[in-house]
Structures are given as C-alpha cells and as structure tokens.
C-alpha cells in the first residue's frame, strides 16, 4: 500500500456504494419482471369490488404471483379494518 493510500482509505469507497445500490435495485426489478401484466389491473378491480362491502384502504390489498417448478401461486391478501371501523354493506335496490 502506498503512502497516499493510507489517507485515502478514510473515505468510503463509491464502488461499494454502487454495488449495494445495484444489488437492491436489481433484486427488486427481477422480482417485478416475472409478474404478469394484468396484476395491477386485477388489484384495482378487486379493490373496487371489496369496497362495495367493506371500507378498506387503498393499500389494504396486495396481489402477488409466485412461481416454483411445478405451479404458479396467485396470492391475494386483504387486510380488513377493525370491527368498529367497518361500514355496513349498502343494500341494493
């Protein structure tokens, strides 16, 4: 190690920062990549249907698609509000 390197090493390496940022980003983008195109639309429409009956938040629904060797799993996760906050289903005419 050269004389100047001794002083340089006090700074964090930008290459290390770049690597960390890329690892996070690439992992995220890869997980998005294999999702079918219709998922956001499906999520939106499901939300609309559920909101007819239960007052859920915009982000209370998550739709995920997972894949393993043999099958694809479409997972639908709805977080319902507490009993007290629920609105009663509106009766249809």
């Amino acid at each position, binding site marked *: 190690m*050269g004389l100047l390197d001794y002083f340089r090493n006090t700074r964090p*390496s930008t290459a290390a920062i770049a690597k960390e940022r890329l690892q996070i980003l690439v992992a995220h983008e890869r997980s998005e990549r294999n999702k079918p195109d219709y998922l956001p639309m499906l999520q939106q429409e499901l939300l609309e249907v559920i909101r007819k009956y239960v007052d859920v938040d915009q982000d209370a629904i998550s739709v995920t698609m997972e894949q393993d060797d043999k099958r694809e799993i479409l997972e639908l996760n709805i977080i319902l509000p507490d009993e007290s906050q629920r609105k009663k289903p509106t009766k249809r005419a």
Partner: protein
Amino acid sequence: MARIIVVTSGKGGVGKTTTSAAISMGLALKGYRTAVIDFDVGLRNLDLIMGCERRVVYDFVNVINGEAALNQALIKDKRCDKLFILPASQTRDKDSLTSEGVGKVLGDLSKDFDYIVCDSPAGIERGAMLAMYYADDAIVVTNPEVSSVRDSDRMLGILASKSRRAERGEEPIKEYLLLTRYSPHRVKLGEMLSVEDVQDILSLHLLGVIPESKAVLNASNSGIPVILDEKSDAGQAFSDVVRRYLGEDVTHRFIELEKKSLFGRLFGG
C-alpha cells in the same frame, strides 16, 4: 447452419459496435466464414468502425425489401476474405425492419456462414429486439458503472423471455458477460465496480474484460477493428475473448494492476 451471436447491452455507448467489429474480425481470422450485421437502422456506424463506409451500396433494408440480393449488399472485408459486413440503412425509418424479413436474411446467411454477429442498437426498440430475437448466443457488453449494469440486467430479462428460443421453449440463449472500459487502477482506488462486483450482481459467465484503452479510439479513428492492433492491450484482450468464445481455456488478463515501480508504490495511485 451458422451460429447467431447478438452483441447487446441496453445502454448506449458501452462498446457494442467496437465489440462486434473486433469479434467478427477475430472469428474470421480464425478461419470461420463470418457475417456482421448492423441493426442500427437510421444510425449506421458499423461500416465506419470497420472502415468500409465508402463501399456501401446496398443495405440490410434493401435486402429485406428485395431491392438487392444478399451478395450485392454484403461487403467483403479488404483485410480478411472470410469476413462480410451487412450495413444498416441510413435513411429508412425503423419500421422497415420486420421480423419475417430479418428471419429470412438470417436464414439465407446461415447457409453460407459459420457465424453471424448481430450488432444491436442501444435501447429496447424494434432494432434491438430483432437483433436478439434469433440469437443462439448473447454477448452482453457492460461498463463497470451503475446504469450500464442495470440495463444489462434488464436486457438479460428480455433475452430470457422475448427471444425465439424462449418463445419456442428451446434451450435458452447462452449469455456471456463482456466487461469493457475497465480500469484496474480505479477499481483499486475503490472508484469503480470490480469484475467480481459485476459478476456478483449479474451472475453471468465472464467472456472477458477489455481495459479502458487509447487503442480503441485510435482504431475507430482509422476504421480498423481494434483486434488487429495486436500490440495493444484492448486488441489482445479481444483476441483472448474470441479464443475463449471458441472454447479455449485462456487466463483472464488486464484485470489486475500491473506491477509498479518503486516511485509508483511509494506514492500509490
């Protein structure tokens, strides 16, 4: 049957055309009949890098449209008689490349050639998609830099899902990483992603590392593929890449900083 190689990257300016020129020349020098095709319709540049810009009469789109025969459009390289260049059209719009047209030209070339190198344009528009669609092998040219690495990963996703091999459920395209404009000096200073860093992120088979080199600009200035500059580091690195691609076991070079003098060691950098 020819083997079709796409040289791709997503990001522009990383060295796709330099690589296409060098590798096609390298394969031809090894005795393989090689065609190199410029897919960058509207922004043709392979002819300039290969030094045959004044010999272009017909182009890729003329052949697709049946306005010229393939052997009229192919330009035989003056330095190596196994190498032929098919230039891109400079005036037509990008829509003139059609999947069927490209497929037919590649099919015809396959009968006469051992290797077809497709020089992809940057981006993920039609030219880039068609350049990779029929490929058997992909050389993903990447700079050790965040946007290039990210775009390369995006390109890998496209290779795995949008190619003919993927659509037909055949054996996937073989993907190789070519890291270009590499500076061991800056890597040592912690200013540049290392080969290992990029491999950790992309998990690709490393075909080679091309060092940042004055020889590359000198070569393009003169219209001589840099692989012909046998004395230069980049030229030697590309020769290694071709040998590795052909299955030889060649030790990677130009990754480590060369041993420095006492003066260099004392002052670092």
